[in-house]
């Protein structure tokens, strides 16, 4: 297990390095930051001065090494707009994003998983069909449409909940529900099919043949096995928690990372965009690492490298 964990850790580290490099390349390919930020008709001396100040006049590999070193130590330079450290701008927005995405995750798992298990155990029943119909509706509807529908119903027509802003706990309700709905639907479908797959395995029949009560067969021989594929999708959801809120934050004017990303890109604030990408990527890699470790914990075949 230790060797397994170490190999996954090494993989995570390499991925981070890869992301750092990738972010650098993409941003440099997208144009000369000096021109982008200063506008084309600025005097040449001003552009030159800007280049010097930001190290843009040095050879590209030197820029890369300096950037990579700083990035890995969490230093992304100062925001080109307001001069504060970019990473601070990002980190002070993180709690707001987590304040809606973590409850949304709880909603996805707390509703999706039980619904999926129930549907699988009562396959083809009315409840199963109903659950699956609702879930199709849930994940085919784009989140901004759902957001607008919710605002219309609960914000405008009924007037029960505030439609935008972040002044009270109530402001978080609609963003959370919007984020949670599609995820819960996906989770329900995925859990259901993972459970059905496992319930069809010979060891389930063999466990019943042993004389185990059905709930014990489900609890001990179906759920742990169905958890293995389900962990993948959970990891994906956790990984996209931070990045996934962009649209919803924009619709509800929620002051999180997503809104910051939109404005930083619009302002061509390179340092902030890079810091954002790094935080988002690091979060995803961390989620992936957790998934890998969870796999090893859940599935002895993965742990021993068999398969």
């Amino acid at each position, binding site marked *: 297990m230790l060797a397994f964990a170490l190999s996954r850790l090494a993989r995570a580290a390499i991925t981070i390095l890869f992301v750092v490099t990738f972010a650098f390349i993409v941003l440099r390919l997208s144009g000369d930051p000096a021109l982008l930020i200063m506008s084309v008709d600025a005097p040449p001396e001003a552009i030159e001065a800007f280049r010097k100040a930001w190290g843009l006049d040095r050879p590209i590999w030197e820029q890369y090494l300096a950037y990579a070193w700083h990035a890995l130590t969490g230093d992304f330079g100062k925001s080109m707009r307001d001069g504060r450290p970019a990473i601070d701008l990002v980190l002070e927005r993180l709690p707001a994003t987590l304040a809606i995405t973590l409850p949304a995750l709880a909603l996805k798992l707390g509703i999706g998983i039980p619904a999926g298990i129930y549907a699988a155990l009562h396959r083809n029943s009315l409840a199963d069909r109903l659950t699956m119909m609702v879930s199709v509706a849930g994940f085919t509807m784009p989140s901004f449409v759902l957001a607008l529908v919710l605002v219309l119903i609960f914000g405008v027509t009924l007037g029960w909940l505030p439609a935008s802003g972040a002044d009270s706990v109530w402001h978080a309700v609609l963003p959370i529900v919007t984020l949670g709905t599609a995820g819960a639907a996906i989770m329900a479908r995925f859990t259901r099919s993972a459970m059905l797959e496992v319930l069809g395995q010979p*060891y389930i029949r063999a466990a019943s043949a042993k004389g*185990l009560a059905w709930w014990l067969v489900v609890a001990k021989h179906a759920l742990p096995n169905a958890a293995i594929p389900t962990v993948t999708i959970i990891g994906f959801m956790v990984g996209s928690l931070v990045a996934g809120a962009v649209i919803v934050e924009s619709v509800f004017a929620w002051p999180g990372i997503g809104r910051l990303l939109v404005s930083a890109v619009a302002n061509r604030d390179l340092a902030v965009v890079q810091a954002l990408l790094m935080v988002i990527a690091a979060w995803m890699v961390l989620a992936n690492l957790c998934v890998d470790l969870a796999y090893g914990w859940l599935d002895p075949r993965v742990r021993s490298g068999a398969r």
Partner: protein
Amino acid sequence: MAAPLVSIRGLSVDFDDGRRAARAVDGVDADIAAGEAVGLVGESGSGKSVTWLAALGLLPNRARVSGEVRIGGMNLIGAERRVLEGVRGKRIAMIFQDPSSCLNPVHRIGRQVTEALRLHRGMDGRAAEAEALRLFDQVGIADAKRRLSDYPHQLSGGLNQRVMIAIALAGQPELLIADEPTTALDATIQAQILLLLSRIRRETGMAMVLISHDLGVVAENVDRVCVMYAGRIVEQAPGEALFDTPHHPYTQGLLAALPTLTGPRRRLAAIPGSVPEPWNLPVGCRFAPRCPAAEERCRHEAPPRRVIAPAHQAACHFDVAGQSVWPAQEAAE
């Protein structure tokens, strides 16, 4: 004769998926006496597994099961889940064809054995582990102590089948259904597992039903053989009688396909044609389309069960009296 341990009467199983009705088992009658070893043979698809899965209530819900399966005066067909759970593993245990996929890949095998011990014998902790070790010894698993903490994927198919047998023995059942326990294994391992099953039966005195599509496998290991074809039992007889004077053309065909160790080497002749699908069964005798002796009557009337000798019955319109209806085999050159 004492009352049988398990008695099956008129057991039928239909699979109805809405598009077509399929009768996989059709009016099976059979008795298993305490301590007896019975073989159940027939080609693939003849309903051998479904018969016993139905008896233990292990078929999916859409299977419609009728008839009776009695053990100790209790009818298992239509019984409550709690009743069935009390019989499974405790009075009737079942092991299956593909041992490696019948063990849960995420649990240690030791735990899968102690799970049965806790359930049936109320054993926990040290006592359960000690008993698991004893069972592993009994089923011939070397280095039992270390094996307890292995996962199924670390064991060979043969070892996994031994684990399955240990689990089956955990409940000290009166009857073990071994459903093609060796089909997925190599020939040498096959022989070892069959020997093990015979030895365990001698040691424990439990009854056994050995399901196989190979008459040869069954013959050496049981007292009595039931031959099943397309959902019906077409002949049953003590092993010797079945070999010496087979009365049903199907049995004769199966025997003709066996390689003999003693007599002259013959060409193996599988029976031409194949088992009819359960949704497309012929009326009359189900074997008629493949039977060399079939006549008009066979295609209309289902043959009654005829008693040939005590404990020997065959369902054929003709009394062939042990004379094979199949063309003689030439000696192989």
